[in-house]
């Protein structure tokens, strides 16, 4: 088989696995949230039904071309991000397209979807969308700072920006994980991760009552369906990235699922325990403790 075709097929397989895993984990997480609130909660497969329902809608309206293709940007951003991350360590095929670029490509490609989505939301002409985008972008700038410091710290530690190499360097035992070898960077990254997942207390972007879920407020039917697909893939891609950076990557899908699930749980636990921050609060918070930790991480890894 042509290696390229093979590669593409494996990429599709990756996407398929991640999509399903993402949807299920979404359902489970919501279930957990319900259980914390002493409810029974939705069935774990509810996200599937919601997506099918949304595709089954018969009417849809369009606000314009950017609105129309915004979900495409969003999903392309999610899938692309996934494809640029080496998923399974030691498996050539599940490296997907990570040969295209290193960690920096991944960090920057996140914004591809964000930007497209923001544009689509803006074109709907809904003020709440624009407010949401404003909040979202503001918050992004805040948490990217500790994130970058953490990543830079890791880059110093391993002297590379190649994700596969970072994973390789963490092999050989739990204590080799960056989480243990570089705790400061890990803390900075995990704090940044909270907002990156967009969960409480950093979910003011989507505040459902105040600005009816913000940017996607006008999206519906098939458009919303595409966005929901992305909501399944994109967090998992991020989780895989954090897993690769901090927790030694995964050598098989089982390991991947376990590790990412626990990383996800971190944000879930924080989310169910803390109320929502206002944007300025979250921005200030990120420019406080996490920033200091990030700076400390960089300084420590540079000089020690």
């Amino acid at each position, binding site marked *: 088989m042509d290696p390229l075709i093979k590669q593409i097929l494996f990429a599709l397989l990756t996407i398929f696995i991640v999509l399903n895993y993402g949807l299920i984990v979404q359902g489970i997480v919501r279930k957990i949230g319900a259980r914390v609130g002493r409810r029974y909660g939705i069935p774990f497969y509810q996200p599937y039904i919601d997506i099918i329902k949304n*595709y089954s809608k018969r009417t*849809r*309206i*369009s*606000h*314009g*071309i*950017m609105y*129309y*293709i915004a*979900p*495409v940007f969003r999903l*392309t951003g999610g899938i*692309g991000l996934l*494809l*640029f991350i080496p998923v399974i360590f030691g498996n050539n095929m599940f490296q997907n*397209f990570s*040969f*295209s*670029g*290193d*960690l*920096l*490509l991944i960090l*920057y490609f996140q*914004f591809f979807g*964000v*930007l497209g989505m*923001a*544009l689509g939301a*803006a*074109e709907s*002409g*809904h*003020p*709440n969308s*624009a407010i949401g*985008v404003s909040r979202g*972008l*503001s918050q*992004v700038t805040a948490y*990217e*700072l500790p994130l970058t*410091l953490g990543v*830079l*710290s890791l*880059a*110093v530690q391993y*002297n*590379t920006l*190649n994700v596969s190499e970072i994973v390789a360097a963490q092999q050989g035992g739990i204590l080799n994980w960056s989480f243990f070898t570089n705790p400061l960077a890990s803390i900075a990254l995990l704090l940044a991760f909270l907002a990156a997942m967009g969960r409480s207390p950093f979910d003011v972007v989507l505040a459902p009552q105040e600005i*009816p879920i913000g940017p996607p407020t006008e999206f519906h039917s*098939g*458009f919303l369906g*595409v966005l929901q697909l992305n909501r399944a893939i994109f967090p998992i891609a991020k989780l895989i990235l954090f897993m690769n950076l901090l927790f030694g990557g995964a050598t098989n899908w089982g390991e991947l699922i376990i590790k990412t699930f626990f990383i996800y749980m971190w944000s879930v636990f924080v989310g169910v325990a803390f109320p929502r921050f206002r944007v*300025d609060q979250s*921005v200030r918070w990120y*420019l406080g403790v996490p920033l200091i930790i*990030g700076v400390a991480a960089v300084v420590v890894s*540079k000089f020690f």
Partner: protein
Amino acid sequence: MVDPIYIVAVLLGISFSLGFIGKKSENIAGILSLLALGFTTLVSAQWFYNFVTADIETYHIFTTAFKPPFSINLMMGKEEALFTMMINAIGLFGGLYMFDRLKAAGKNSFIALLMLIMGLNVVVMTRDLFNLFVFLEISSIAVAGLIVLTQNTKSISAGFKFMIATGIISGLLLLGIAFIYNYAGSLNIDHILTQNLEAAKGLSIAIFFLMIAIVLEMKPFPANGWGLDVYSSAESGVSSLLSSAYATATVFVLMKLLPFAPENLQFLIAAIGIITFVFSNLMGMRQDNPNRMLGYSSISQIGLLAAVIGISSVIGEYTYFIVISILISHFLAKSGLFWIAGIVKQESIKNWSVLRSNKLLLVLFGVFIFALTGLPPFPGFFGKWELVMHLAETKNFIWIFAVLIGSFFEVVYMFRWLGYAVKNDIIIETKLKAKIHQIIPLLLFAAAAFGAGYYVSSEHPYASLINYLPLAVALGFAFIEFLPVFIKNTLAIAAMAAYFYFNYESYNELQVIFAAIFIIGGILTLIAGYAYKGKRQGFYPFALMMFAGLIGLVEATTTLEFFFAWELMTIGSYFLILRGKKSIKHALSYILFSIGGAYLILAGFGLAAIGKPDISIGILSNIELYAPWIFGLLAIGFMTKTASIGLHIWLPGAHAEAEADVSPMVSAILLKAGVFGLIMLFLAMGEQFIGNISFAYILSWVGVITALMGNMMAAFQEDAKRLLAYSSIGALGYVLFGLSLMSHLGWLTAISFSVTHFMFKALLFLAIGGVVWRLKTKDMYKMGGLIKKMPFSFISVLIGIIVLAGVPPLTGFAGKWLFFQAVVEKQWFLQGAVLFFSGIIAFLYCFRLIHSIFLGQPKDEHRNVKEAPFWILVPQYAILMVIMLFSMLPNSLLKPIGDMLMPYFPDGAITWDGQMATTALGYWNGKTVMFIVVGVFAIVFGWLVFMNRNAKKVKQFNIGYAAERPFLPETTHYAFNFFAPYKKAIGFLVAPGITNFWHRVDEGAHSVSDKFTKIYNGNAQSYLIHIVAFILVIYLISFGGF
């Protein structure tokens, strides 16, 4: 050749014979006078010409049959020829200019004019002290007469002050002469000097009186209130005579008598001169009356000349060159400006907008202002250059500082004035008409200013290397201003293309890159100029002048050429910026920062040239002395152009208010001049240290903070072009940081980012310019929903912001990727993190830009707007093509730059494998990223189109609006204060501290200026007290006691 004695004889003869003429025949009197002056001008011109071309010997004129010292003799040397020529010319043309005024005052006023010129001629030529005194008296009495040409309280009291003051001064002069005679037994200058007189206290006091009287004639600070009052109240033509002729003669007298003065007195005179220069210019800043302002300027220029003459023993043989070039500039420009002031007749410079009704006068006004402030190609430029070079060579750094700060003050008020004339919105409904006899002198003097510049530069060993061709082409466009824009634009593009085509082979790679940004970029932005209708007067000469300066920078081989080009570019861009709306303030701050920066560069070059045989750029690379200083001065100088933090406040306004195609020119292209300078500097000087800290390290933080602050301020702007302007500040911060990394990757980033920044900033500014063109507003919140009206502009902006934000897969990412490779390699993580942070902030304003303008709710007013003009779109799409090419094939951009950098930074280069770039740390393949992204995008898009094939197209208010319906687009479009929460969180960072700082500096300088001017209280006696006190103080300093 005509004996110079005829100058005296003819002037006297004619003035005596005017008595024969009856009262009604003033015309004849006037014409006779002018003929006489014309004759004398020719005589001295002829002498000067022969001195220059034939190198003849100095000619001595003996009166009576006896040789000096027994009789009075005159001398005609090269200097005398030049000075008398200037004096006679100003007499002739000043007389012509004032012809109707003099005529109205009667034939006797012609006598005063002739006598003044005659007196000054003899003052210049004579070699006898007492004769000097007599003819100086003639001149000052003649001036006192001319002052009352217009008789009003002001002029009469000013004349009285003048007479009383000159009375005391000439009394002291006579006292000095008397006692010199007492000790020397002779009055002949040469004779006295050749005697070896024993140093008696009385003699030295006599010499002191002689010198101090001459210095007082030059109106030193603070004993000069009488002079200022004359300048501000006399007829403009008379002021021009006083400033140009009288002052010129006193300068010469000082040169002539300087050998009398002991060394410490010479330095004292120099000190007085430089203090006068600085303080008069400082006080000039608060002036509102043009004549008085010019008076301050005159006094300051003469003070500078006194300073130069005073330290001639230090400067050496170049004193003459410096004095002449500064003096000629002052002479031509000051007379021209006084004359124009006489035509305009406005008491306040704010009302000078009336000058706009007469284009010719406006142009002349600009020429004179530039000549006066010592900008190229006028002679003052070369004078200032040589002065600084020689002061540096002799390590008189405080003097350099004083010269530059004084010049800077002068620039402040001169350009404020120019700004008012070109742009102030006070409309005065009068059409300025200048009579032909007023225009001719102005035209001739303006032409002479250019000619003098050429002459002076040809006298200079390095200035003669300057390539004047681009400047000549630019000036040539001034003569075809009557042609329509289409032809001029085509010609301009053709000229630039031809220049590039014929020259690019002689450039090295670095030069090619920057020449390409400057020239090709220039051509691209010029294409947008086709969108303009009419003649677009005043655009092409300056645009081309700017490009001439830019290409001159690239081609410069000596520091002089570099500085020349730098100033040229500043002038051109200043006018381009001044063309914009409400630009008056911004253009002023632009020129102030530019000139301030240019002075720093000048000082840096001066220091660099210490002990070097020549001034080629190469000297920068082997500097033993003061290297950190030189580096610092030059770096700060260049950073004024790259608008680094602290020096950036000129940029937002200047770029934002400019026209649609000027904004990209100044923002995308012009800023790269600073980058080029920095590159040159770094290449030549490498890393420099203050103590243990590397300059590069400091600059890296400057760059980082610039990037952060620029981007953050951009996020909070309401004005689209201001937003882009702040974004330029941020982007140039990146470049500065890249350069300061001093590594292969850092430089690769900086240079490639310069290219990329050119592309996206030109794209964005053109696109936004097109929008502003149609919408006639720059406030983003007043726009909205324009995507449907201006889809092509939208695509430009979309691509532009994606590149700007550095989002893959477009070429902007290359810059970001390289940056972090470089940062990690260099291990400057904190800077890297802040840069990343500021890169994210770029998203804020990028989104805001596209959202507020193109998305959201369209406004009712804009329902019928059309797409931006075709010719503004053309360059955008040309740039888009290139962006796409570079995005697909990043190595087509990066590899040549990398190769170019190999000689300088051989380590840490990128290895290329097809489009795959690999560094020690990471890798990136632009092509596959592009394919993957496009592939995934296409599939998802197909899926979505299939799902949503029957989507219903709705209108702007069909939104779920909390069960209500929107009522007005204005209230529904969320765009004003878009990042309010963000501002709430970290808005304190963008408090306008730096702007406030500069405002305080400005206010402080003005209030100091105000305080100082208070000493001129208008009372004649106070002025006399100043004079006496001045004499006493100088005496005490010079003798250290009584």
